[in-house]
């Protein structure tokens, strides 16, 4: 059994901490008076510094110390939080990442520059009211603290002495080492820690300041803090409330990242929810590749089960069938459990855009609010990873081209601050990610002119709005009059299109002049195993993703004959175009006497697929197409059937688009 490399674990947890620090800073930037966020950022920096020192990242610890000190001053009311300070620490945070990733690199010069910026921000922010605050003598409370660190603390690199030093910094302190648990030398494991400490601390700081001292060593430690008395009757309410009569052991948390998690507050701009209590102690961190491995194994099991099911079905052996059904049920449950394990909330994905928007607002001189919704929506982790780049392009585009300058917005009677809404929701086996802005909208005339000029469409071509908007995803297409360093080169939107296509997703664009535009990405929830509908067309078998199937109908020979040339069926008073897969795949076979129409849809668009036989539902383990078949648009992948044959998986988005195109041509032809 292999144990994880502690440095790698530190890097992972530090990355999470940096994300939390960044989120806290961005929240603080919106509401500079938010004390909870100040505390959260301070805790994050404090934890990062301590953990960095513990794991030998001395440069990181030394650098972070300055930022921590700056935020400590903000916390104590000596310096107000300002946007300059937030920006300085955000930049410093990026540098911390570099110090973590390449600790041996030459970072000194960059560190100096950033620390100079930080000092300037702190000096510039000095609070005129601080002098008044300093003039009043805050009430002090006597705390009795008893703590013991985990027995393996020293072996894990934790030195208790800096903790004691930090307690001394909080006020008048009497520290007594309790050595009564130290065993005799012959029984001693000398790397274990058997000393605990009793501390009496007279301080004006709240209990949370004491807890902060231990924030990155709370794992399994015992910490009792009792407020004994306040020195002044005029003590502030917050101090009074600290003076609880009984000890309050601090709950141990599992990892340092969890320990640094912000206490509560959701951003004013963030939709509520997602504030579940931290149950880190019930979580286990698993490397993503292990999940991928497990997923592969489950995939193989599903295929083997499918073979067993086929054998059992053909054997007539009732006992074998019963076992086969049990295995089918269990493998289905295992698959579902596996799917849940792979699902991660999009919050992680969305959080990175807050920084992006912050930076873009700075670069463009625009005031931009990012609103996020549906952050708890869960998506397969591999989908999340691949969505990041397209979303960056779309958000950049909204910031740079979509939103107007403050002057333009004022002139248009809009609020000065532009808004970008990033939302996620689940809908029938898909996650819908929407990027909506309240900017100027897409200029249809300019899109058309550009498309005609570049030969993408013939002059005067009749296109629906959606078809016209889809042109912006063509390679090299840009209507931007100016190429900025953000966007306008026409590379980016085609990346969005390619990535979403590869994810078997679809893109919908809506725009209203002067009111803004909305781009929706509909992506399958998972890329690994899906429920499929197995059908036969000619001699070949194909899988249609079940989430896209609306209904199945019978297409009699008479109806088939009647619809020749038109390829429409009437479905509850509406005409639905259909595609004969036998023709599309050129099977060269005769149609079955009772063909079936499988009606599939993506959002509002529907199309029927004529097949020879519907075989039934099928757990489909998706295998990627080979490079040779990479550009075959009709299929999104392949799967292995129970008998070892390969079935191709139909690309629903492509087929619906083809059906709609066929409909448009037929309508145009009258």
């Amino acid at each position: 059994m292999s144990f994880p490399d502690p440095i790698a674990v530190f890097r992972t947890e530090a990355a999470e901490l940096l994300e939390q620090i960044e989120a806290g800073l961005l929240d603080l930037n919106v509401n500079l008076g938010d004390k909870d966020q100040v505390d959260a950022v301070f805790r994050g920096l404090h934890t990062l510094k301590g953990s960095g020192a513990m794991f030998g990242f001395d440069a990181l610890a030394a650098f972070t110390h300055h930022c921590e000190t700056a935020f400590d001053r903000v916390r104590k009311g000596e310096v107000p939080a300002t946007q300059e300070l937030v920006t300085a620490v955000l930049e410093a945070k990026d540098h911390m990442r570099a110090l973590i990733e390449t600790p041996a690199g030459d970072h000194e010069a960059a560190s100096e520059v950033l620390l100079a910026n930080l000092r300037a921000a702190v000096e510039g922010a000095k609070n005129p009211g601080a002098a008044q605050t300093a003039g009043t003598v805050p009430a002090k409370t006597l705390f009795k603290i008893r703590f013991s660190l985990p027995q393996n603390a020293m072996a894990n690199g934790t030195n208790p002495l800096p903790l004691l030093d930090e307690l001394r910094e909080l006020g008048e302190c009497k520290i007594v080492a309790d050595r009564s648990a130290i065993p005799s030398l012959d029984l001693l494991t000398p790397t274990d820690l058997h000393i605990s400490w009793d501390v009496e601390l007279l301080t004006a700081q709240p209990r949370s300041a004491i807890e902060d001292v231990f924030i990155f060593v709370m794992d399994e430690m015992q910490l009792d803090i009792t407020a004994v008395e306040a020195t002044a009757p005029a003590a502030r309410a917050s101090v009074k409330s600290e003076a609880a009569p009984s000890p309050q052991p601090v709950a141990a948390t599992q990892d340092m990242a969890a320990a640094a998690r912000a206490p509560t507050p959701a951003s004013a701009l963030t939709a509520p929810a997602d504030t579940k209590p931290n149950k880190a102690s019930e979580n286990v961190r698993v490397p993503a590749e292990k999940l991928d491995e497990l997923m592969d194994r489950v995939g193989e099991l599903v295929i083997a089960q499918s073979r067993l099911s086929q054998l059992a079905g053909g054997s007539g052996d009732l006992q074998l069938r019963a076992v086969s059904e049990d295995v089918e049920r269990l493998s289905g449950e295992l698959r579902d459990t596996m799917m849940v394990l792979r699902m991660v909330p999009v919050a992680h994905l969305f959080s990175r855009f807050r920084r992006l928007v912050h930076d873009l607002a700075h670069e463009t001189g625009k005031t931009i609010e990012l609103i996020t919704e549906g952050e708890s929506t869960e998506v397969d982790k591999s989908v999340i990873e691949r969505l990041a780049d397209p979303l960056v392009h779309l958000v950049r585009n909204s910031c740079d081209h979509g939103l107007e300058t403050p002057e333009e917005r004022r002139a248009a009677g809009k609020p000065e601050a532009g808004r970008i809404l990033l939302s996620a929701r689940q809908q029938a086996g898909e996650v819908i990610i929407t990027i909506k802005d309240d900017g100027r909208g897409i200029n249809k005339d300019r899109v058309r002119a550009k498309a005609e000029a570049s030969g993408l469409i013939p002059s005067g071509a009749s296109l629906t709005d959606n078809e016209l908007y889809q042109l912006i995803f063509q390679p090299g297409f840009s209507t931007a009059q100016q190429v900025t360093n953000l966007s306008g080169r026409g590379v980016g939107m085609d990346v969005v299109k390619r990535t979403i296509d590869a994810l078997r997703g679809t893109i919908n664009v809506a725009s209203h002049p002067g009111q803004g535009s909305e781009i929706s990405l509909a992506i399958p929830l998972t890329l690994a195993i899906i429920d499929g509908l197995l059908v036969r067309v000619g001699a070949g078998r194909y899988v249609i993703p079940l989430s896209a199937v609306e209904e199945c109908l019978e297409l009699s020979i008479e109806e088939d004959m009647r619809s020749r040339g038109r390829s429409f069926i009437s479905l509850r008073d509406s005409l639905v175009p259909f595609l004969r897969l036998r023709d599309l795949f050129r099977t060269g076979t005769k149609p079955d006497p009772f063909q079936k129409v499988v009606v599939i849809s993506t959002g509002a668009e529907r199309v029927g697929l004529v097949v020879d036989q519907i075989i039934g539902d099928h757990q489909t383990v998706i295998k990627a197409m080979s490079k040779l078949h990479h550009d075959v648009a009709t299929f999104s992948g392949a799967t292995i059937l129970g008998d070892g044959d390969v079935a191709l998986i139909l690309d629903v988005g492509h087929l619906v688009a083809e059906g709609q195109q066929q409909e448009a041509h037929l309508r145009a032809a009258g």
Partner: protein
Amino acid sequence: MSTPDFKEDPFQLPQNLTVRTISAVRQEILQLIDKNKSTTIEITDDCQVDISFIQLMEAARIYAGSAGKHIALTRPASGPVLDILKRGGVLEGMSDDDAKFWLHQRGTQ
């Protein structure tokens, strides 16, 4: 072969007395106590020390005491060792015996 009643030469500890080397130091001191009725420990001025060493010496005192043997420092704690005793809160609430051992106050143990 009989064991000597008193080890004349003090045992000089290595320079590194931190958690990284403490297991080896424990082994050395354990053997010394086992072999001798009295053990004197010398700590260099420029040693690196952390709380694990203080704990080790406390454990050694318990072991020696239960075996009816004697352990002492060649001179009162100073420099880094005294600093760790202070920072670690060991000086606070020291018993007379503790003070005798660590600081040589009122004779040796």
